[in-house]
């Protein structure tokens, strides 16, 4: 089954964690900025009030001493500004560039503007950086906002004069944004770094899950070992325990099934052996011309056929019960087993050159395959070779490399129609040969169990006739 990468646990966790972290950061940043804004406004307003209180006395005094009818007085620069003056004269009006009325402070960074106004709203005195135009704020004590100024108004003198101290809102906004930016600009870099850290952390955190996934993936019919964990994690341990319990049950069920087929083999073989032996004795003990002789011989032949068929059916039952792989998943040396199977054939009379095999060539033969299953496979292939190639030269058994065995025999080539069905049960290419039609089906099933491959050729490669079966064994 194909699973999209975005459906992975790692992707989902990373995405959600990142979204949650970013969301909280945004909310935190917003709340932080709001708090800063509030505090800065408070501070700036306090500064306006303080400026108003401290300046009022000086301004009144200056007004009294310097007032000229019909003229707006401009307060001179504070004493410390003299040193900062960039020319040699003592004229403080050379910085009156802000008289254009835009109220954006001066170049020395003095953004506090003030005006002393009478009850009619006329400007009597102003700060150097303020304009002659009265502030648009009403002459009412307290704070007021104009388009571009935050103004604090207080009464002074006998209550007929109004001191208005103002600060450009643009300056406040600039201060606020500079503060916010300086406070939160590191987050612009921290967010990607945090995302990377989340990806890394999630990846590391999910390592045990991946390990368990790989372990479960490696399990199968041939490998039902319990999954072991060096440092169990609670959540995964529950899964692993459940999987181990399940594999144990599966292993028991498979063993019971295999044991049943093995026991069935034993229980079935013995009565057939009795019947066959007794019938053979009967054939030998009856006089040659006895009327029952023929029937006894037919019974003997039927029992032999029954014996062969039951053997094949039991092999097929074993194959379908899943025999083939090694529970430990380790490769087995199969050369000696192959030699033993061939020796069996030779002991049973298939010698005198009927089988050609070089035991030395099988020294390196290894596969993740049970010895019994392997023996069943090669026995069936050799039986086929002897049965169908009899009289057309020997059966040649060749081992190629460490994982391939070829069993080839002579005789007529299999017809294309029959060839395509050879691996099916009870399919015979040559009914005269007397086979059960199960041999290749058994081999195919075992090869499938063990992830190996059975390939058939007819005629043999580079020959005009015969048949060849090739087993490509699976190695772990």
């Amino acid at each position, binding site marked *: 089954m194909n699973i999209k990468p975005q459906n992975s646990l790692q992707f989902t966790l990373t995405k959600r964690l990142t979204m949650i972290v970013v969301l909280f950061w945004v909310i935190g940043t917003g709340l932080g900025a709001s708090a800063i804004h509030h505090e800065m406004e408070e501070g700036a307003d306090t500064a306006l009030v303080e400026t108003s209180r401290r300046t009022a006395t000086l301004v009144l005094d200056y007004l009294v001493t310097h007032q000229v009818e019909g003229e707006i007085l401009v307060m001179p620069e504070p004493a410390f500004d003299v040193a900062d003056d960039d020319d040699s004269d003592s004229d403080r009006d050379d910085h009156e560039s802000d008289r254009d009325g835009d109220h954006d402070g001066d170049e020395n960074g003095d953004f506090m503007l003030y005006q002393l106004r009478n009850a009619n709203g006329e400007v009597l005195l102003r700060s150097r950086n303020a304009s002659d135009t009265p502030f648009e704020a009403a002459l009412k004590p307290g704070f007021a906002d104009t388009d571009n100024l935050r103004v604090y108004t207080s009464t002074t003198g006998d209550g007929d004069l109004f001191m208005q101290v103002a600060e450009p809102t643009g300056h406040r906004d600039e201060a606020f944004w500079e503060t916010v930016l300086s406070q939160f600009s590191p987050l612009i870099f921290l967010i990607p770094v945090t995302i990377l850290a989340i990806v890394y952390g999630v990846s590391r955190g999910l390592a045990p899950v991946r390990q368990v996934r790989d372990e479960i993936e490696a399990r199968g019919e041939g490998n039902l070992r319990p999954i072991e964990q060096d440092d169990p994690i609670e959540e995964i341990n529950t899964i692993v325990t459940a999987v181990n319990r399940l594999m144990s049950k599966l292993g028991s069920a498979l063993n019971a099934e295999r044991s049943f087929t*093995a026991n069935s083999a*034993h229980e079935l*073989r013995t009565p057939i052996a009795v019947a*066959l032996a007794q019938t053979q004795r009967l054939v*030998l003990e009856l006089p040659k011309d006895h009327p029952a002789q023929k029937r006894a011989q037919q019974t003997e032949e039927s029992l032999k056929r029954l014996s062969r068929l039951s053997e094949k059916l039991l092999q097929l039952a074993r194959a379908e019960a899943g025999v083939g792989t090694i529970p430990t998943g380790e490769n087995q040396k199969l050369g000696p087993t192959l030699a033993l199977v061939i020796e069996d054939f030779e002991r049973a009379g298939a010698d005198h050159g009927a089988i050609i095999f070089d035991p030395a060539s099988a020294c390196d033969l290894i596969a993740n395959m049970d010895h*019994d299953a392997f023996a069943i496979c090669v026995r069936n292939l050799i039986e086929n070779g002897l049965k169908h190639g009899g009289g057309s030269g020997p059966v040649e058994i060749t081992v190629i490399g460490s994982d391939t065995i070829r069993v080839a025999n002579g005789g007529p080539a299999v017809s294309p129609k029959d060839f395509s069905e050879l691996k099916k049960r009870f399919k015979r290419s040559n009914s005269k040969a007397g086979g059960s039609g199960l041999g290749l089906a058994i081999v195919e099933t075992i090869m499938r169990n063990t992830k190996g491959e059975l390939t058939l050729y007819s005629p043999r490669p580079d020959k005009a006739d015969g048949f060849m079966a090739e087993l490509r064994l699976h190695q772990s």
Partner: protein
Amino acid sequence: MRILLVEDELMLADAVRDHLLAAGEAVDHCDSIVDAEIMLRGTNYDVLLLDLNLPDGKGIELLRGLRRQGSTIPCIILTAQDQISDRIEGLNAGADDYLVKPFDLNELSARLAAVARRYSGNPNPYVELDGGVEVDLAGRVILIDGVQTDLTSREWALFDQMVRRPGQTLSKRQLEEALYEFGAEIESNTVEVYVSRIRRKLGKDVIKTVRGVGYRV
């Protein structure tokens, strides 16, 4: 050959025993490990035919015990367990051959003969004796100057013992072992009677008498 058959399936044992008796072998039968151990202690058998699943244990343990005690008796396992791992286990335990049930009785005879030949030190089944006598042990055929001559089962059993060990003198006691069927009575002159009959059929020079010791070919 004197053979001990250890098989708990009585009908199978009966057929095997009859077949081997008809082939001129002396066969004793028992159906348990305990009985087999007693019989093996009392008699020198030439071959042991051993079933693996017996009522009182595994036949393979009996074989391992025999090998541990230094016994070299040839052994053929007869079993319904056909897996190669069972076969490897049996051969590793000291079996000489392994025959899976159901088996052809003639194949059993052939395997017996092959094992016996290997143990006699002469694996060649074709033996030539004095007087133009040729013996095919596997086919149980005797030719005198190219003409086939038949022996009875008991005559063959006795002759077979000597032919398997050409040049070796066998005692009267050893030859009696080949003729014994367990429980059967053997007269004191039985061996002499059968040697005499064989000489009449094959020629007087085939079997030589070693006075006070026994006979040899």
